[in-house]
């Protein structure tokens, strides 16, 4: 049985099903009805579910529950210091670190850490100071810290991506931060302004689990690979119908693998030719293969947001799931060879996380 936590414009929807059956998943429950749920995840250590909810009235909060159909408790410490010149706008993502910590990233470019399973959170002040000292520019979705990438086996090493403030790394558990943007080309800036610019709109970043120095990013126009732990990047988007998109994921068993979902471009953020397609590489981006068996292949102008693509398992049994702002959720139980509709007619999907 696989569980999908679907963050949507109108609540958290918990789906359960068997990808081998090829049937729609069942809705187990819906939490936070009417409220935008930006992201939800099941902590692999505690098995607790954490959800980020941005009430249009009462602001962003993190909530946790052992049972999503039961009582939810508001986490503490999810705020900027009182008297700040800006307010916390949204929490985009929560990720389990390698040393027992949980990390949350949000707007305006902030990182929080929890050492008690998500009950209380502490702002990373060193990164916050970089944002205060430097003129980070927000992307269209705000100044969002959306990707948090631990290094397996080394809990003090962490990489982040911020839209639009590029890639950041720490080797000392967040005491100091350095940038890793060499080779990323911001085509949306004038040529003379590109060199050394930090106005880099990374849309999603992932690390190859079995070769941690290898990383991938889906950029705002460009797909990139790094083989030096995110210090420098090479374009690998050739062969895709478009190198614009939001989400990206990998097969943990294969460091040469990545999956992206191209959109036409920043001028028209829907799938090319009205066809729903996931593109897969198994050679580090040298070539890409469209995967669409079972997916809509005409008159489908869908948009998939950056956190709405996730995986469970690995290898031949890799499960892939993505949700669209149309309210459709699609899944594959065979690493993308074939697909099925896991849910339809949901509210606009902001995020999907899968637990097998």
């Amino acid at each position, binding site marked *: 049985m696989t569980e999908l936590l679907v963050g949507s414009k109108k609540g958290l929807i918990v789906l359960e099903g068997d990808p081998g059956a090829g049937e729609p998943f069942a809705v187990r429950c819906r939490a936070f009805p009417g409220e935008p749920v930006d992201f939800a995840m099941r902590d692999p250590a505690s098995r607790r579910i954490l959800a980020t909810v941005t009430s*249009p009235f009462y602001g962003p909060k993190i909530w946790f529950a052992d049972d999503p159909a039961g009582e939810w408790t508001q986490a503490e410490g999810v*705020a900027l210091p009182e008297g*700040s*010149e800006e307010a916390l706008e949204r929490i985009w993502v929560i990720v389990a670190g390698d040393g027992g910590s949980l990390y949350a990233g949000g707007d305006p470019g902030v990182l929080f850490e929890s050492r008690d399973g998500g009950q209380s959170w502490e702002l990373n002040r060193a990164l916050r100071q970089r944002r205060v000292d430097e003129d980070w520019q927000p992307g269209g979705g705000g100044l969002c810290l959306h990707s948090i990438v631990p290094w397996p086996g080394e809990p003090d090493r962490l990489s982040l991506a911020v839209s639009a403030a590029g890639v950041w790394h720490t080797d000392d558990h967040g005491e100091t931060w350095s940038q890793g943007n060499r080779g990323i080309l911001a085509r949306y800036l004038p040529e003379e302004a590109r060199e050394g610019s930090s106005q880099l709109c990374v849309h999603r970043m992932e690390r190859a689990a079995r070769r941690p120095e290898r990383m991938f990013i889906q950029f705002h126009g460009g797909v990139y690979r790094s083989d030096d732990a995110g210090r420098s990047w090479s374009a690998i988007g050739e062969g895709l119908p478009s190198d614009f998109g939001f989400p990206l994921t990998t097969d943990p068993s294969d460091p040469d693998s990545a999956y992206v979902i191209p959109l036409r471009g920043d001028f028209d953020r829907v799938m090319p030719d009205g066809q729903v397609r996931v593109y897969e590489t198994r050679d580090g981006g040298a070539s890409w293969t469209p995967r669409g068996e079972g997916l809509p292949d005409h008159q489908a102008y869908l948009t998939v947001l950056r956190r709405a693509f996730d995986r469970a398992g690995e290898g031949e049994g890799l499960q892939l799931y993505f949700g669209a702002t149309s309210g459709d959720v699609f899944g594959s139980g065979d690493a993308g060879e074939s697909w099925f509709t896991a849910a339809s007619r949901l509210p606009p999907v902001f995020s999907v996380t899968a637990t097998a």
Partner: protein
Amino acid sequence: MALVCLHGPLRELAGGRATQQVSGADVQTVLRGLEDLHPSVCGWILDERGTIRRHINVFVNGERGGEGTSVSAGDRLEVLPAITGGT
């Protein structure tokens, strides 16, 4: 003391009481006083800057007020979600 009237989840956070007596010379001070009485309210009405959240309205004796609106003893503060917040 002003009379602060709360609705929906704010009422739950304030111990289930629909009204609270809170002292303060302006709206922000009264709302900070409410947070002191009920720390669970922190972050729900005022953000980190001390600003009333964009889609929350505070009325003082029936007129919409801001953080600096003066409050006198016996005034009635209604804290309500705005009609602009839901899409």
